[in-house]
């Protein structure tokens, strides 16, 4: 019971720690943390569907892409500020999620078949975007840069720290939303459906409805992450924000950290991004010292290796490992008594 109160208290120093980093951290550290928290945010959004509802989507990149493209197109063609455009993108992504979810779940398409459908859908969207000229095709779209003070109203900042604070706030927000879901009827129903769908159905829980709600919520929030990326980089291209490869990158954090847990995706991303960065750095070092070309695949190999090893040796992720240890300790305590 005391623990219940302890956890929110613990949040304060952690939040203060991350909030104060811009005061002393350099640009390089900020860049890495922005990307790490961006993946933490995306992973947490995915977690609602992938972790809590147990539907292994490999198409969440589509929603990120819809978010990025909607706000950017609204801004470049109609001059709508991305602060508003991002909600248009989020609603659109949510709608796509509902349609995809309805079509899949009504026939009980799940497990790996659901993964296949989502993979195929994200590849279709990517290929279409790469072939339509006014969507930028393979060249992509540059977000027109705004100079001076007017930038903030258009979701553009000069230095990195405002972006950092934005993505930090977004991550905090999605954790709060996830926490609320976890402790609501929706969360309990999703858990029941995940554990045993037939049993849940026989108790009158409409599996289709709650799974669709999960898709809608997850799609809505993850699309906001797409707009963030577009505004941070001021450049988007179909293969950067869509497709299977990006979907896999989104899923990495939650899998390493522990899917279906509140903090798993954040922990996983904070481990994964520095790991990916250091292999990139290693690639550069090897390239310059030994004059070797063609080491570009090294960081994807790391991702692949991590995926294989995590599934084999800690299938429940970092958080799962911690929980299991705690359980063992408790059991030992009971046995000793």
């Amino acid at each position, binding site marked *: 019971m005391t623990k219940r109160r302890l956890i929110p208290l613990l949040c304060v120093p952690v939040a203060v720690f991350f909030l104060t980093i811009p005061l002393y951290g350099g640009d390089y550290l900020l860049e890495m943390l922005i990307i790490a928290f961006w993946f933490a945010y995306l992973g947490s959004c995915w977690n609602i569907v992938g972790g809590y509802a147990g539907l292994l989507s490999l198409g969440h990149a589509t929603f990120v892409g819809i978010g990025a493209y909607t706000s950017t197109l609204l801004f470049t063609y109609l001059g709508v500020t991305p602060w508003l455009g991002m909600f248009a993108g989020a609603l659109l992504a949510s709608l796509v999620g509902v349609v995809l979810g309805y079509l899949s779940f009504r026939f009980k398409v799940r497990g*790996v078949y659901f993964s296949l459908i989502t993979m195929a859908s994200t590849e279709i969207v990517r290929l279409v975007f790469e072939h339509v000229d006014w969507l930028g095709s393979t060249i992509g779209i540059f977000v027109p840069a705004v100079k001076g003070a007017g930038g903030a109203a258009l979701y553009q900042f000069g230095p990195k720290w405002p972006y950092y604070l934005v993505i930090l706030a977004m991550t905090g927000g999605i954790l709060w939303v996830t926490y609320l879901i976890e402790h609501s009827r929706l969360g309990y129903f999703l858990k029941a459906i995940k554990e045993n769908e037939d049993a849940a159905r026989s108790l009158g829980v409409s599996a289709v409805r709650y799974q669709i709600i999960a898709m809608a919520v997850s799609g809505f929030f993850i699309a906001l992450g797409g707009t963030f990326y577009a505004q941070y980089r001021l450049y988007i291209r179909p293969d950067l924000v869509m497709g299977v490869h990006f979907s896999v990158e989104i899923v990495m954090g939650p899998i390493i950290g522990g899917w279906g847990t509140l903090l798993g995706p954040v922990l996983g991303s904070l481990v994964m991004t520095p790991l990916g960065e250091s292999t990139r750095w290693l690639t550069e070092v090897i390239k310059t010292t030994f004059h070797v070309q063609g080491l570009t695949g090294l960081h994807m*190999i790391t991702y692949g290796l991590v*995926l294989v090893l995590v599934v084999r040796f800690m299938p429940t992720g970092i958080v799962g490992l911690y929980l299991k240890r705690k359980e063992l300790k408790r059991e030992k305590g009971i046995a000793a008594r």
Partner: protein
Amino acid sequence: MSCRCSPAAAQGKPMLYAQALINGVLLGATYGLMALGLSLIFGVLRIINFAHGNFMVLGMYASYWLFTLLGVDPYVSLLPAAALLFFVGFIVQRYVLNPIIEAPEEMSFLTTLGLGLIIQNLVLMAFGPDLHTIDTPYKLASLAVGDLNIDVSKLLAFIASLLITGAFFSFLQWSETGRAIRAASDNREAARLMGIDTKKIYCVAFAIGAATTGAAGACFSTFIPTSQDVGMLFTLTSFVIVIAGGVGTYHGTLIGGFVIGIAEELGAVMLSGSMKQVVSFCLLMVILLFRPQGLFGRESD
């Protein structure tokens, strides 16, 4: 890179469609062979092998290098390519997949996804991002039948694929190992009770699945450029074929190969060449979403 080969060019030209139909049938046999491996692996092991397309890319590279370095014809190097993939497949199943065979299906799925990433990027590191083509003597040759052209390299791939598929079916039907594989695929528990070493059978089945894929890769290398980044695409295409033909039926997979081959070639005529994958991905979604029960050959447990 928007290809504007406009659909208008195809209108009123039934000849183009006939040509696409022929190409589709020729392509279909190799597609069928490619997907057979996936079908076997799924049927026996219930593993969704996401590294499948990457196995094929390995076969393509084996054939490319044997041709470039030693001048070996791709239809000869088909055997070493298959042998290499047999070896790779055996190792993968023995040391990576067998230990997690009892885990939920998502686990093996994620593992093969990771393997696919590793293979693809190892190939990228070793051979670079370039496209490679094999200039066989018959590369540009074609037979004219009326107004239609039949590419010799595609015809050869068609014949070779059908022969290998025939060999595959006879092996499965009549050999002792083939019978054990079918038994394990019908009922794991019963097969184990009958004294079949299922773990070993898994390795052999996975290896054979990979080997046929490698052979398909060698066939493809004669008319499709070899490159590292087509793996994911071929993986998805193989899934479309297996699902279209019905999961768990090997004959269905062959038919699925023809269906998808024809659909893609017709799609290439109607849309544009580089959009033809959209056709098969859309087919995958439509089949999974609207006819899931009807097309799954066997009761999924």
